């Protein structure tokens, strides 16, 4: 196993993890504010579609696609925000609705706007070139960090930004407060609804961008159902990462690694069915979920509990 192989695999890991990271950051912010948002999948799907739509309409401009996708993601998430805050809809049911609606809408719009079924590749697409970082690209192994797309670097920067905002600013404190105790937040003058709108819209934008990455950078087309469960993997990564931006990002890298290894195995011609290989990330996700529940890391309503020894409860 020589160095280039490792470096290639790590680079692959980063590429695969990029959309997960963005989605997970969005989910993390929502979780911290007490919003159980598993509509990441639907938000991303809308973004993926919007990106290709904008690319097609603009004659190949991927930048427009990325920005448009973030915008569309945010607007779409506003519906979720409305129902979850104003109408007090159950988070899980509303999430399911948003995911369902996204699948239906994208499928519908594919027919209605472009008169195709199943998938669409834009007539022209000016792919964004990857960014090569001068010194880094020559360091063995670490050069996996160079040559990635701008979205990837954006995602990494966002990890740092989310960290700072969450733990060092008033906004972040307000977010954590709302997630911990809505009553305490209200008596301190914080408006929970406003805070939740903000995190949901942010998650919408992040997920939109993640979807755009999938449809314009990973590949160059939109196909129905192309998010393929990544939204749920991202959510799990967030749970395992304790809703902490840095840990969550690391977990998404782990998931990316699993996927990357799977692809290598498939390509290496080992006699393992590709379907089984595709299961890797999901199995890993379930194991991660189980482990984090066992150590009592993240309770699903946004409270991060202390590590505890289990006591036997009857029944």
């Amino acid at each position, binding site marked *: 196993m020589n160095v280039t192989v490792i470096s290639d695999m790590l680079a692959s890991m980063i590429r695969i993890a990029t959309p997960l990271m963005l989605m997970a950051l969005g989910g993390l912010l929502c979780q911290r504010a007490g919003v159980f948002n*598993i509509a990441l999948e639907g938000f991303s799907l809308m973004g993926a579609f919007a990106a290709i739509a904008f690319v097609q309409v603009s004659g190949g401009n991927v930048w427009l696609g990325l920005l448009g996708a973030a915008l569309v993601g945010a607007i779409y998430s506003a*519906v979720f925000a409305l*129902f979850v805050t104003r*109408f*007090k*809809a*159950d988070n*899980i*049911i*509303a999430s*399911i*609705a*948003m995911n*369902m*609606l996204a*699948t*239906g*809408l994208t*499928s*519908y719009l*594919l*027919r*209605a706007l472009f008169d195709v*079924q199943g998938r669409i590749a834009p007539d022209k697409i000016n792919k964004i070139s990857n960014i090569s970082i001068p010194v880094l690209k020559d360091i063995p192994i670490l050069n996996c960090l160079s040559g990635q797309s701008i979205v990837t670097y954006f995602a990494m920067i966002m990890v740092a930004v989310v960290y700072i905002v969450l733990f060092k600013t008033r906004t972040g404190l307000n977010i954590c407060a709302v997630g911990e105790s809505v009553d305490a937040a209200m008596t301190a003058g914080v408006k929970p609804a406003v805070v939740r709108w903000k995190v949901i819209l942010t998650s919408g934008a992040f997920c939109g961008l993640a979807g755009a990455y999938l449809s314009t950078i990973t590949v160059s087309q939109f196909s129905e159902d192309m998010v*393929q*469960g990544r939204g*749920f*993997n991202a*959510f*799990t990564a967030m*749970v395992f990462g304790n809703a902490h931006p840095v840990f969550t990002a690391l977990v998404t890298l782990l998931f990316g690694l699993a996927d990357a290894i799977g692809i290598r195995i498939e390509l290496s011609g080992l006699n393992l*069915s590709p*379907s*089984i290989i*595709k*299961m890797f990330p*999901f*199995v890993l*996700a*379930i194991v991660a*979920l*189980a482990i984090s*529940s*066992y150590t*009592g890391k993240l309770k*699903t309503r946004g409270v991060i509990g202390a590590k505890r020894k289990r006591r036997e*409860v*009857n*029944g």
Partner: protein
Amino acid sequence: MNKLMHKRIADALNITVRQVCLILVSLVLASIFLGVSGYEPLAIVKGIINGLSSDIAGTVRWAAPLILAGLAICVTYKAEVFNLGVDGQLYMGAAAGTAVALVLPEGLNKAVSLVIVFLAAMIAGALFAMIPALLKVYLDTNEVVSTLLLNFIAVLFIEYLVNGPMMDRTAGTNLNASEVLPENTWLPRISFFEPSSANIGFYIAVVVMIVIAFLFYKTTLGHEIKMVGSNPVLARYAGMKPKKTILQVMAISGAIAGMIGAIEVTAVQHRLLTGFNPDFGFDGIVVSLLANNNPIGVVFSGIFFGSLKNGGINMERLTDVPSAVTEIVMAIIIVTISAKFVLPRLKARAAKVKKGGE
């Protein structure tokens, strides 16, 4: 008993009226949506009406799996458990049913064969549902996420099966499907509705509904499910075992999901293949929500959604309106049901206020 029945019927009527209003609102919104995108606005409404009159066969065909999916959901919902894994459990049931059907002796009596196949499917579905159930009960793992992840695993597993061990190698080219099931394992279609694939799965669904309703209203398990869903600490304090109850509801739910897989494979597809499940599991959520998680209501809700789905398919076939609009309608329905709109909010405020004055 009479008083209780009266109250139940009154409540049911109340809720029915409300749900019908919601359906109408959703349909209006969807029709507007269709009109705006340049399609005939009334297409979906026509499709539904069609499905309840001239093309009732299609409705019956789709209603069966939808009713069962709705039942699978409402069983767990009462216990405040979210089984979003019906799709995965359905696939596992289909796989098990197919595997068993393919090894049964050809000459075996049809009824017996079918019973065995269905049992295998139900057991497989129940076992697959035990994975998230055990995780939840012993590790406190949130079942929403675990069931969703398992769905993907199940789909991939089926892909693996029909591209590998269970692939049909009898035909010249390699199909991505299992061999055709022997005829003695074909669930009978309803001859009245032929050539539609409407089958006796519908009757099976109604029977399951009766069983579930009986379970809820007349058995101790039903009472325990209700109490565990309402307040698990109370249940424990009163001597019940919430953990056991959760396992039980998940097993029942998984078994029903497996049954759906068995019906689709034995009555409609006559073989195992990928993608035969148009997300019945998620549709089941809408079916159950619309029925207010009441098993009897689920039948009516299932029939409605059956006609909706059928209408959508016909619509696409005949008029070029994309059938995806049915999913949009369903999503609108979910969202409008789950939103606690003004009226209920006022009521809640009134109740809170009555307690006030401290």
